């Protein structure tokens, strides 16, 4: 399907050097089994799953090793290959916090043995029950492979419940250097389309738009070929402009709609999924393989043979680099993700995770733009030139945000809508004063969050205190009320008795109590007499 499609523009954006060619010359390689895997237990947005294995356990390939509780946001985890669990302890993970987290160290036996852990292959998904498909998506540990690692089941399930109009497939891949989606589309277009068809079956949207930046003509052609016979699927070759692969930006480009501040795509009747996630969905359902591997780009002038590798989750970066020919002398920075939004890693012992789309090993010089003699120049004061504002895809005023952040006037920063900042790095990229704006904004965001938490806490304790005071007052009032009623009742009784006494003229002749006593006495007497008589007659 290549109907004339109208595209909208989002504000700003930049054209960094894309460096895609380096890693697209070679086909996707399959990594030979590494000796060990380091599998972080939490690789997704949400809660920490519950471990199902312990140290010393033997696990099969595809065996579930960590599970989510029902109704919790999160995802399950499977052993990527067979072997023995050597340890479960803290290890460095690829996370911006640079903190360590709990990881399963799995020593592989080289058998790559599924045991009986492979899931049932659902070849004919078109005839399959939706509940079963959803269950599979949940059990296969699928998360968004674009980088955010949001649990796919939660996203799909809420879309099924609410119903959507448009399914957007994000294949823009706008970050420089990264080509894993590009190669995936070139080589496995049919699998991707099958994955998309599964989503279409589940959601029954009116249309499905696949957004691919037009710097990937091979991928566009492959997907177009594969989707030819499906009317709902439409391939959209969008202009190359960073960050068109941002979910909100892509939705704007393809549909002209803006996801509201603080809202999600579903509010507009749109579900957006990454193209690699669709392929993983295909694998999970049609092949019965949970998410245990993904395609990752190893690139940059710091590796000898930049390429894309299909590797097991948990493979240490050093193994991936070895597969890409090893380091060159220029290896100065190790970045997970791209040069605009990636995070640097301090060592290559770190494992790849479900969210790892690229490892970029590069010299600092190559990361700077070519011909840039001044790029290494020191930071200068902001001259309010407004280049950042022109580049900002969120339509913010980075120059003002920076000004107020510097003054630590976080209230003003919040007023300037810092929470809409997606940290895409465009402002930083264009700044002629070379101010690390995104770093300032991250700092401001964390400060604002801290302040909000503090405010929340003090609000809560104020509420608690107020409730305590209220309760004390209420109890006192209740006590007083009770006491008053009691007193009143007593007084009434007394008054009634006094009135009665007065009415009976002080005598108790008709007093029922006295009569009763008399009657009882008479009964006792009669009984006594009767007993005595019995005793006598018995003798």
């Amino acid at each position, binding site marked *: 399907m290549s109907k004339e499609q109208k595209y909208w523009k*989002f504000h700003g954006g930049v054209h*960094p050097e894309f460096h895609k060619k380096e890693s697209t010359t070679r086909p996707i390689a399959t990594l030979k089994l590494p000796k060990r895997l380091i599998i972080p237990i939490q690789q997704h947005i949400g809660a920490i799953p519950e471990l199902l294995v312990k140290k010393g356990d033997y696990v099969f390939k595809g065996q579930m090793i960590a599970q989510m509780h029902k109704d919790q946001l999160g995802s399950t985890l499977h052993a990527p290959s067979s072997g023995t669990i050597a340890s479960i302890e803290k290890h460095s993970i690829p996370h911006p916090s*640079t903190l360590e987290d709990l990881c399963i160290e799995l020593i592989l036996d080289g058998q790559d043995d599924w045991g009986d852990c492979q899931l049932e292959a659902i070849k004919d998904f078109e005839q399959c029950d939706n509940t079963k498909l959803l269950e599979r998506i949940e059990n296969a540990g699928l998360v968004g492979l674009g980088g955010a690692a949001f649990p796919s089941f939660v996203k799909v399930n809420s879309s099924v419940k609410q119903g959507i109009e448009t399914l957007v497939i994000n294949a823009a891949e706008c970050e*420089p250097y990264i080509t894993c989606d590009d190669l995936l589309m070139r080589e496995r277009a049919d699998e991707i389309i099958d994955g998309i068809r599964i989503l279409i079956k589940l959601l029954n949207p009116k249309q499905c738009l696949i957004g691919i930046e037009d710097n990937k003509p091979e991928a566009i052609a492959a997907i177009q070929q594969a989707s030819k016979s499906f009317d709902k699927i439409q391939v959209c070759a969008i202009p190359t402009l960073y960050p068109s692969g941002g979910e*909100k930006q892509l939705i*704007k480009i393809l549909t002209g709609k803006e*996801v*509201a*501040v603080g*809202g999600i795509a579903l509010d507009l009747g749109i579900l957006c999924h990454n193209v690699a996630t669709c392929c993983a969905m295909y694998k999970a359902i049609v092949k019965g393989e949970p998410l245990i591997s993904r395609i990752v780009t190893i690139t940059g002038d710091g590796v000898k043979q930049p390429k894309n590798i299909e590797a097991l989750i948990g493979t240490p970066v050093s193994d991936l680099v070895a597969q890409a020919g090893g380091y060159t002398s220029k*290896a*100065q*920075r*190790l*970045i997970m993700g791209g*040069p*605009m*939004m*990636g995070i*640097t*890693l*301090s*060592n*290559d012992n770190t494992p790849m995770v479900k969210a790892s789309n690229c490892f970029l090993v590069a010299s*600092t010089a190559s*990361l*700077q*733009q070519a011909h*840039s003699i*001044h*790029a290494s*120049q*020191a930071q*200068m*004061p*902001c*001259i*309010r*030139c*407004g280049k950042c*504002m022109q580049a900002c*895809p*969120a*339509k913010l*005023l980075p*120059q*003002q945000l920076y000004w107020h952040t510097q003054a630590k006037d976080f209230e003003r920063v919040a007023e*300037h*809508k810092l929470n*809409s900042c997606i*940290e895409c*790095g465009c402002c*930083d*990229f*264009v700044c*002629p*004063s*070379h101010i690390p704006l*995104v*770093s300032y904004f991250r700092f401001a965001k964390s400060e604002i969050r801290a302040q909000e938490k503090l405010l929340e806490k003090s609000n809560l304790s104020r509420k608690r205190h107020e409730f305590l005071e209220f309760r004390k007052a209420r109890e006192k009032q209740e006590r007083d009320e009770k006491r008053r009623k009691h007193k009143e009742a007593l007084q009434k009784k007394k008054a009634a008795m006094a009135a009665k006494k007065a009415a009976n003229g002080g005598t108790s002749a008709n007093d029922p109590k006295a009569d009763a006593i008399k009657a009882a006495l008479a009964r006792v007497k009669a009984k006594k007499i009767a007993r005595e008589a019995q005793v006598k007659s018995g003798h």
Partner: protein
Amino acid sequence: MEFETDSSPFTGSTSNIASIMRQVLYALIPGIAVMFFFYGWGVLINIILAIVIALSFEVISLWLRKRPIKPFLSDYSAVVTACLFALTIPPLAPWWILMVGLFFAIVIAKHLYGGLGYNPFNPAMIGFAVLIVSFPLQMTQWIQPHFMDGYLPSLLESLHIVFNGFEVFYNLDQWDAMTMATPLDDVKIELKAGHYFSEIMQTRPYGLVSGKAWEWISLSYLIGGLWLLYKGIINWRIPVSLLFALAMTATIFGWIEPDTHPSSLFHLFSGATMLGAFFIATDPVSASTTPRGQLFYGASIGFFIYVIRTWGNYPDAVAFSVLIMNMSVPMIDYFTQPRVFGAKSEKKS
């Protein structure tokens, strides 16, 4: 293997402040060339002297403020300030005029407020404003353009005049004869004298729409400004809104009373209108920075230029209009924040 860590993004652009400032200087070249053609060596002496003085003040200020000297000296911002300032000073003005003006521009307006990027007011205009208030005589004596009497002092003579005063060569009457008010001033005086604008245009030695020299100078600034727009150094909003507002105001008043109000073309091509629109009001540090704010800022300057030129007592109005609006920038910026992506289109309360 261990790696250094850092925070994204890791890649950056090629532009820097120095390159921006250099482009501004290049864009001034046509204007400077035309001014040199009409007013002779005094123009270049002003510029060179201003650059030397400005850089000296810059170095001293940086040194006193214990700031690194090299990066700030090589950012060309002081050179741009010096050039813009020099172009507003009459050629052959005494050297100390430049000295006093640049002291206020660089030391007071720029460094006392925190240096590059922190000055709320346009430094060159502060220098100019101080001078026009303090030394109105020296600041209004523009030498006659060379086509008027065909004579301009030579380089040596010019240097003598600048450093030792015109008295070296001329007596006061001769000097008075050599200098004249700018067309802006001249028209104002003539209008006050009861002449009609159309009459003035015909009887005075003017060009097509304004002073013979000034319309060419303005045109060359316009060309330089368009080049800056083309290069993306400045944004269209401030210059366009400024020129539009000035032209519209002039047109409206001209329509009400054409005889006593100069035409809009006269306003656009007189005095510092073009220099102000493209080079001074667009100084990013002291200008409004939001899209809507820039429109308002530019239009207000254009309006004030007309008001001060028409009813004020000063020969030109760009400096004061720019300074007035500089003051309002924080407020303008606050109230003209653009709608962020995904925000409701309703007006914010």
